[in-house]
């Protein structure tokens, strides 16, 4: 009888150990790629920003209110209009996404029957799967004309409609993350509240939500980081012009949009304007990274509570 594979394993040839080590090495290098990518990213941003900050003082970059890198005679590199622009768009988006997303999550986890939940959740996720250029189109050609009927002075490109469309795009992010966390609140806590005579609303408000609060906070932070990094909606609908002081009804520019502007512009490779995208990119990278780590940390801390 020919020996089967399993029998072979018992009489492992000497090469087998080497092969196993080799495979483990290959697999490890796949995982280690994450470290390499992060390190390379940080190195690129440090070296690239070095060129930028050799010419522009950090104080001017973070405190200046005039962003005009393409001005040939008097270029100015105050990134405050871009930073504030990013925060404004993010703020509007969160004002839209957090209430809708959170209340949707409460409905799905606390009120909906299992059948409704099964149907409603995937439909909500569709919103997350729609590419952001589509939201940009929607913001520019649907939301803005709609807003114009209420606010006649709103301009064709404006911060408000871009922010609203961005908010719609991140509703599913908020709802699905908070739903997971609200759903994970142990049943005993709810039953304890009911046993004390609380109604459903009182239970949700005083027991479930406080228990899930850290998770909701993590979801909000993650949504914020998504909104800060979002590019296409803003590039299409918000006008790509840095304005100071910023106005919701007027065009504005965000950090990400400046990067797109440089890439789609006609600046030659090696022109100083390319250095600006490293400084802006570094700022963006640091902001999103800090938010992501914060949210990751909150979620991990929270999960351990019930285990």
């Amino acid at each position, binding site marked *: 009888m020919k020996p089967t594979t399993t029998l072979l394993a018992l009489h492992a040839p000497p090469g087998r150990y080497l092969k196993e080590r080799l495979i483990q090495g290959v697999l490890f290098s796949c995982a280690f790629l994450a470290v390499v990518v992060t390190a390379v*990213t940080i190195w690129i941003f440090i070296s690239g920003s070095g060129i930028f900050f050799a010419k522009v003082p950090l104080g001017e970059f973070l405190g200046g209110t005039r962003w005009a890198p393409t001005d040939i005679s008097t270029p100015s590199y105050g990134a405050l209009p871009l930073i504030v622009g990013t925060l404004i768009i993010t703020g509007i988006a969160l004002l839209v996404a957090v209430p809708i997303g959170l209340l*949707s999550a409460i*409905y799905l986890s606390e009120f909906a029957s299992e059948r409704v939940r099964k149907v409603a959740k995937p439909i*909500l996720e569709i919103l997350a799967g729609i590419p952001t*250029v589509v939201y940009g189109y929607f913001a520019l050609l649907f939301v803005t004309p709609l807003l114009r009927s209420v606010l006649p002075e709103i301009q064709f490109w404006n911060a408000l409609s871009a922010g609203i469309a961005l908010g719609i795009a991140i509703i599913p992010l908020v709802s699905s993350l908070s739903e997971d966390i609200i759903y994970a609140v142990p049943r005993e806590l709810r039953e304890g509240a009911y046993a004390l005579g609380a109604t459903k609303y009182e239970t949700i408000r005083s027991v479930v939500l406080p228990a899930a609060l850290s998770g909701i906070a993590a979801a909000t932070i993650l949504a914020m980081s998504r909104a800060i990094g979002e*590019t296409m909606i803003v590039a299409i609908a918000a006008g790509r012009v840095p304005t100071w002081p910023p106005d919701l009804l007027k065009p504005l520019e965000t950090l990400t949009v400046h990067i797109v502007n440089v890439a789609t512009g006609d600046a030659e490779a090696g022109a100083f304007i390319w250095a600006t995208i490293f400084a802006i990119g570094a700022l*963006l990278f640091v902001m999103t990274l800090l938010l992501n780590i914060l949210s990751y940390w909150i979620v991990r801390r929270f999960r351990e509570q019930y285990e």
Partner: protein
Amino acid sequence: MSAQTLPRDRRSLTWRKAKSTLFGSLTFSTILISFALLVALIVYILINARPLMAMRAASRAGLVVSTMVIQWDAKNLTYVIVNDFVPESEAARAGIGEFDAIIHIGSQTVYRSAQVWEAIAHLPQETLPIGWISGDPTKIFGDLLPQMDPQTGAIRVAIDYLPEESLGFRAGLRPGDILVQIEDIPVTGSRQAWEALIVAAQRKPQPGPLAVQIERDGEFLTIALDAEQTAQIPITRSWARAIWDFLTSFDSNSPERAGLASAIVGSFYLVGLTALFALPIGVGAAIYLEEYATKNPLTELIQLLIVNLAGVPSVIYGIIGLEILARALQMDRVLLTGALTMTLLILPMVIIAAREALRTVPDSVRQAAYAVGATRWQVVRSHVLPYALPGILTGLIISLSRAMGEAALLILLGAFQYLTFIPGLRDYFTVIPIQIFTWIGEAKDGFANIAAAAIVVLLAILLVLNGLAIFLRIKFQRRW
């Protein structure tokens, strides 16, 4: 958890219960808002994509039109011209040439190109009754020569030379005649004479002769000039043909002729290559983290970094790709560079999904394999991976649909191109989302419509991809 005291609500139980119901309805209404937004979005896109059929029908019939603006009486006045001559088309056969102005469709005056498409969309029969004025003024007035009136000093426009086959000659104009006014519009220049003709014709409810007042040998005469020619242009209206044309033609300056061919090929190339790169690396990393890694600081770090890389904005990856691949490695901003950078973007997602899939395979499967003497790699390859594969592929497909819709990263990598060929691996390229972005930025009438049509195509592709993922999940889902 901190101690919480329940609020002491002294009101009746009925009120407190009603509050629960009310709150439930409120939360339910937010779900409805989300659904309503989704429906509004899709319906709005579909409505905007609808003129595509008429646009492609017009383009096939040779009516590639464009809206022109002239200053008239200190106001902006618009008219429509044929700006792309299509030889062998129905319009060419009817005698419509490049730069001819379309004045009427049936008894409707045309001011904007969108009106032409709307008329085609609502045609009662398959022919378009069209009235147009030649864009070449010599075919109507011959050569005009401005002269100064010796007595008054005013500019007068005289016919210098008039071919016998011209419309003016046939209507009774002769060389030497001075054009005074067309209908009630005074003629003040040779180019202006043609514009006056357009404006006068636009004021008529339907094609018909225009009253041209001339001065011949000191006498004023009025001549009926049939400047507007009419024809019935056969139109083939078909959604199938319109969609086929749209999917197979290249980008163009005219929205009726612009299509998605290069973008679709670019998108599929890009996503295919990305899948090729991301699958082995992603699965390899996931296997290492799930099956091999011991709990140590390095593993912890890798896990943390993967989660964080998943949250890095795509423009950042664009900068990395541009700097490392395009600049430092001299790879230029081509399809291959795009795919490699896109791989970096979706890799964290693929890894996270693959880890989840590996985790669903119960330990008993591993133990059984170990028990018969399999090595760790044999366990993974022959026992764990086959069971986890549907889950891994589902995760991969969902990540790829993200790549399919991604635009920001590729803009940085130079996929912002006007392409009229099918891109290869080492070519500059464009993809569907970027084509949409470019078309949204075009001011010309009709580009917003084809942008919507391209969005429909993109959403359809994503629907198929996600359908495939759901199919895989249902078909191969295993309960342990």
